[in-house]
């Protein structure tokens, strides 16, 4: 096949794949793209600086110049929400997908080998499940001190367990299947069987779950910031903004309520993607584990 033929064939495959996407997946990905673009092009979308204080125009209700109003320092709330995309989305992304990598790997190996390693892993899972997730994170953050870096450490220490549980359960089913036996008969090493043959068959449930997890992590980080344990002001982080507006709730409702819309919109987009992926990949969607 010529180069041109190859590229036509692959673009055809892409189009065919796109045609099979459920509506929820398309809407979710469309929304998510808009949010990412709004974050990337935030300086072009708004004339204001997210940090510049202007006491002359403090606590202005929503109007044409400030669609989301201004806060107690006279900063434009919409501007801060847009710049918040640059803060919340990357943190949400890394807190979701870094633990997923080693969580799935550990779960897959435990499910494949069984035995002592699996037993040990299961005990660790039992113990971490006994703590309410937020409490565990708060305790770790309390010990290490507030801040984004320590939130990363706390999440990396704990969040992998959910992926390990999912991957282990799937691997237990897969390891008895014929293709695994065939690979073993061919003399392939365990590493190759688990990562090369098992992983493609067990990863779907984790991918679908990761969308809910992404939503939960955005809420976790904004929740910690709301409690004063996460991203510290004046950084435009959504939860911190909601917390700052709490003191003005009686006379300036917009400071707390409108940034929340950003969380809801992002969360909805991610949930729609999760819903669509679940349909496309033929998985049952778990909101929670």
């Amino acid at each position, binding site marked *: 096949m010529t180069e041109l033929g190859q590229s036509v064939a692959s673009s055809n495959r892409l189009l065919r794949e796109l045609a099979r996407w459920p509506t929820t997946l398309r809407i979710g990905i469309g929304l998510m793209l808009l949010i990412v673009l709004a974050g990337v092009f935030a300086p072009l979308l708004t004339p204001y600086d997210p940090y510049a204080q202007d006491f002359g125009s403090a606590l202005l209700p929503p109007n044409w110049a400030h669609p989301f109003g201004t806060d107690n320092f006279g900063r434009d709330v919409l501007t801060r929400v847009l710049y918040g995309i640059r803060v919340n989305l990357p943190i949400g992304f890394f807190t979701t997908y870094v633990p997923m990598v080693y969580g799935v790997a550990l779960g897959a190996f435990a499910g494949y080998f069984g035995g002592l390693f699996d037993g040990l892993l299961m005990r660790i899972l039992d*113990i971490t499940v006994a*703590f309410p997730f*937020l409490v565990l994170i*708060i*305790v770790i953050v309390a010990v290490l001190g507030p801040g984004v870096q320590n939130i990363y450490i706390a999440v990396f220490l704990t969040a992998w367990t959910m992926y390990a549980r999912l991957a282990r359960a799937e691997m237990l089913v897969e390891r008895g299947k014929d293709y695994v036996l065939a690979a073993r008969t061919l003399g392939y090493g365990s590493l190759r069987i688990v990562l090369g043959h098992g992983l493609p068959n067990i990863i779907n449930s984790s991918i679908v779950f990761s969308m809910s997890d992404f939503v939960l992590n955005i809420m976790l980080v904004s929740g910690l910031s*709301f409690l004063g344990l996460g991203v510290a002001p004046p950084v435009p982080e959504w939860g911190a903004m909601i917390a700052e507006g709490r003191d003005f709730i009686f006379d300036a409702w917009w400071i707390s309520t409108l940034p929340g819309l950003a969380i809801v919109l992002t969360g909805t987009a991610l*949930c729609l993607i999760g819903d669509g992926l679940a349909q496309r990949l033929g998985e049952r969607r778990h909101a929670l584990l």
Partner: protein
Amino acid sequence: MVLFDYIVGRLLQMIPVIIGVSLIAFVSIHFVPGDPVEIMMHGRATPEALAAAHAKLGLDQPVLVQYWRFIVNAAQGDLGNSIIQNANVSKIVGERLLPTIYLLVTSAFLAVVIAIPLSVVAARRADQAADHVIRLAGIVGFAMPPFWIGILLMLLFGITLDWFPISGYGRDFIDRLHHLFLPSLTIAIFLAPILVQSLRTAMLDVMTAEYIEVARAKGLGPWRILVKHALRNALIPVTTILAVNIGWLLSGAVVVEYLFSFPGLGSLLVRAVGYRDYPVIQGLSLVFAVLVLAVNLLADLSYMLIDRRVLKA
């Protein structure tokens, strides 16, 4: 006898978990960068006061001795002393345990009240417009952070309409229910989407059972079959769903208690973290974990009483 064996077996299974949980609660204070006592006293203490505080917390003992004391005391209900509040941690925590339990119960109740009609309609009209609307509402509801829901409810019911108090706990029973309403509704709105999702699936699964066919053959209407036959059987897993999600419920409670200045375990935890009151944080993490384990145990036991087949498995 089978029943007794089951309960004993279930309790024995919990022992390694409890040891692990207590170990995590115990070691937490030892990972504080620097001297935890100095941090707690905000660097304003004399060396003598520091040494006295170290001795009072038992931090001058070998680690194994400390851990042994920690679990022996905890088993007797003594969680140590708070240097900052100058009081026994068990007493501080104990005062706040009941409000949190009330909050959990009322929240779970409200969540079930919200979720049942929605899931019945969603199951009855599966894959039709009403189902899609409920599913979308569930997705949006899942994406709403509890502290934000709480602020919206405060604004609407507390400030604009002035129907419900937005902070505190109340004195007598009626007053308490009045105070509990907004925080409970906040947690319920945050919990309901998960319940609707599971209940809808459970009801649709039940709808294929033979006794539903029989009911249909008897000429019963679809709503009646759904409510009287399917819902009843689908409700059994609700206890399990609630129990499995108790950690989720408690996580929501921490933030919501803080928002509504509700005197429960969650707001205590946030305050203790603010003061760096490590003994309280340690004690609370243990209490939270034991609460989760106890709720799961109770759910398993009640499930077993409802459905004796569990024993045979």
